[in-house]
């Protein structure tokens, strides 16, 4: 039995929902941007904001510095808006939702009814969910309960109408329209996503989560998430995503912006399980995402935890700008690639304030013929006296045909800063597998046990029920990594 022998992995979320959708013709020009804006009854400032982004994007070319290889994306072949048709207009209550959609989420283990729980796991506290299907939000649960605490949790398209002053103040304030090619594209055509506002001093009474699903063919998904934590507030937010199995590649270019004011804390967890393509590398999602948090206030804290198992290509660097004195940024990541998947992921920690601290723990697992890169930047400004960073970056190879790469960048402009970097690369050895087998454990279980052990430091950071999910997900994603 050699570790090299590969068989396809099973992607259980790969089914297609047969639902009547309104989808615009492929291609992108100003009229498409205006169409999307009109569809969402947006105010003029936002339409203009989108157009500006579009005009910038039009003049740009996609970045090529990441360690990923794929045929050029034909942006004219993508449809930029698709939404399941609703029975009527007006606020979406669950009764308005196509039963086919409800069944879709049941199959995926996502509760649309408030009394239910996540993926069959017993929970004491419920989770509020915003559910985004292609370009629109289907429903948001527990809205009333959250409103009692003053928490706003709604689709961003709704927030544009109900809380325009907040959206206008913060949208693009962390990730500007011109940040990068995909962020500009997203700014022009973003469809839906979640908006979260936690008022001063409020500890959000439950976990918030958004579940993204791509269903329609040849459509891109461009969601936009904005989370604002006022002084002394706290929120834990989870994000999950899946897509059907299709032979064509599909584009997902999201932007997430987090703002933490004085003493506020945002914990953002992602379990990314977009369709990774088949065992020969056909199909799968191109996941080109810009996620950034701003620790604006003193002693604020932003923590990113991600478990990335899906997507054909991942290009993603959840980052933290540490402006407030004594603010804290964290990045905990597990990125697993199998078959022909490629991931180039990591973080940026930008230290601007005094005594700012950041921690980066990255665990990359490469199996099959996949390529897995960590790319991370730690920068300290001249003013960031007493800044500290600790980076630990571990790679685990399964088999001998996969690649692991590490690209750490350090730009230290403060002589007082302390920056530590540790990196290891290890391999699941035949001897380790044989030891497990000799103790009665089959090789697939053995690999999953070894990989789970390798990821322990990151899983610890996930909310309980997600940690269980993540463990299971790794097992599924690794199926076939040993034969």
């Amino acid at each position, binding site marked *: 039995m050699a570790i090299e022998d590969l068989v396809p992995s099973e992607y259980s979320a790969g089914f297609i929902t047969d639902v009547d959708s309104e989808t615009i013709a492929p291609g992108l020009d100003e009229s498409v941007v205006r169409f999307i804006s009109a569809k969402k009854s947006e105010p003029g400032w936002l339409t203009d904001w989108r157009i500006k982004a579009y005009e910038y994007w039009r003049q740009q070319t996609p970045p090529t510095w990441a360690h990923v290889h794929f045929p050029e994306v034909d942006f004219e072949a993508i449809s930029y808006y698709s939404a399941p048709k609703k029975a009527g207009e007006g606020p979406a209550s669950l009764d308005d939702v196509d039963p086919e959609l409800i069944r879709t989420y049941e199959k995926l283990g996502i509760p649309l009814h408030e009394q239910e729980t996540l993926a069959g796991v017993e929970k004491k506290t419920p989770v509020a969910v915003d559910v985004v299907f292609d370009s629109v939000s289907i429903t948001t649960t527990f809205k009333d309960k959250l409103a009692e605490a003053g928490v706003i949790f709604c689709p961003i398209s709704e927030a544009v109408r109900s809380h325009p002053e907040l959206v206008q103040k913060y949208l693009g304030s962390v990730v500007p329209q011109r940040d990068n090619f995909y962020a500009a594209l997203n700014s022009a055509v973003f469809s839906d996503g979640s908006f979260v506002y936690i008022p001063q001093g409020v500890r959000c009474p439950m976990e918030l989560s958004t579940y993204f699903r791509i269903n329609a063919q040849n459509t891109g998904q461009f969601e936009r998430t904005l989370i604002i934590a006022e002084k002394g507030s706290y929120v834990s937010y989870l994000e999950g995503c899946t897509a059907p199995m299709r032979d064509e590649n599909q584009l997902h270019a999201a932007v997430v912006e987090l703002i933490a004011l004085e003493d506020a804390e945002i914990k953002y967890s992602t379990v990314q399980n977009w369709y990774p393509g088949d065992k020969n590398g056909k199909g799968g999602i191109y996941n080109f995402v810009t996620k950034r948090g701003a620790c604006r206030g003193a002693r604020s804290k932003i923590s990113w935890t991600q478990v990335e198992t899906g997507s054909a290509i991942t290009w993603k660097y959840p980052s933290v700008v540490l402006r407030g004195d004594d603010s804290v940024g964290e990045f905990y990541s597990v990125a697993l690639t199998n078959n022909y998947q490629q991931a180039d992921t990591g973080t940026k920690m930008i230290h601007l304030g005094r005594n700012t601290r950041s921690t980066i723990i990255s665990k990359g697992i490469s199996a099959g013929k996949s390529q897995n890169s960590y790319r991370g930047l730690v920068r300290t400004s001249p003013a960031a006296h007493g800044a500290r960073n600790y980076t630990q970056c571990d790679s685990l190879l399964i088999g001998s045909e996969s690649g692991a790469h590490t690209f750490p960048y350090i730009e230290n402009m403060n002589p007082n800063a302390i920056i530590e970097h540790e990196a290891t690369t290890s391999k699941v050895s035949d001897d380790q597998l*044989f030891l497990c087998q000799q103790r*009665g454990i089959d090789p697939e279980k053995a690999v999953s046990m070894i990989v789970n052990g390798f990821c322990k430091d990151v899983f610890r950071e996930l909310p309980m029920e997600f940690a269980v999910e993540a463990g299971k997900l790794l097992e599924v994603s690794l199926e076939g990594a040993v034969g």
Partner: protein
Amino acid sequence: MNLLEIQDLHVRVADQLILKGLNLTVEKGSVHAIMGPNGSGKSTLASVLAGKPGYEIESGEIFLDGELLNDVKPEVRAQRGVFLAFQYPVEIPGVSNMEFLKAALDNIAAARGNQPANTVEFMKQVRSIAKTLDLNPEFLKRGVNEGFSGGEKKRNEILQLLLLNPHLAVLDETDSGLDIDALQVVAGGINHYRNTDNGVLLITHYPRLLDHIVPDRVHVLADGVIVRSGDKTLALELEDKGYAWLTD
């Protein structure tokens, strides 16, 4: 029926013939010592019994309880009761010993159609075995063999032997690298494991282990075949004369 029956076994490793017609019978309730100079094929025999990939049986048969073992997967052999204490136990960082032991026990139980062990009972049992082997319970929380000294690794192998309680124990130089106190602890563990229903294949380079574990038979392996078998007095003879008189 004999516990283990090896008939005319020829084994090839990396295109080199290592075992060249080995015959051996182990009865239930007995301890057979395998001795011999370095490179004679002792570890190869242990590996092939456990089904290690890369150890190709060219001809001959291995029977466990009368059933042919030649093409059985390693994990299935383990589930049927073959246990190998490794000469050089490998480390598995990140997987705690406790977790590893539970996975082993549960997988073997499942293969036999039994329920997994109760976690609390299991932990009690593991801790009490660790105590008899002078292993600090803190070791159980660490990664499998991670940062263990040579002696600790060997004691950890015996801990697994006592916990999994296999049918046939193949112990590959479990005594090497142990000081006299550790040797006594390990020997005590092996003696505790022995009963009338199981068997031990005790591979050792040094006759001194046999002062602590009295074998029923002693075999000398040289260049891939057994060149001499006898009772425990053969071990004493080897201590006096070395191996050269047998292999020349």
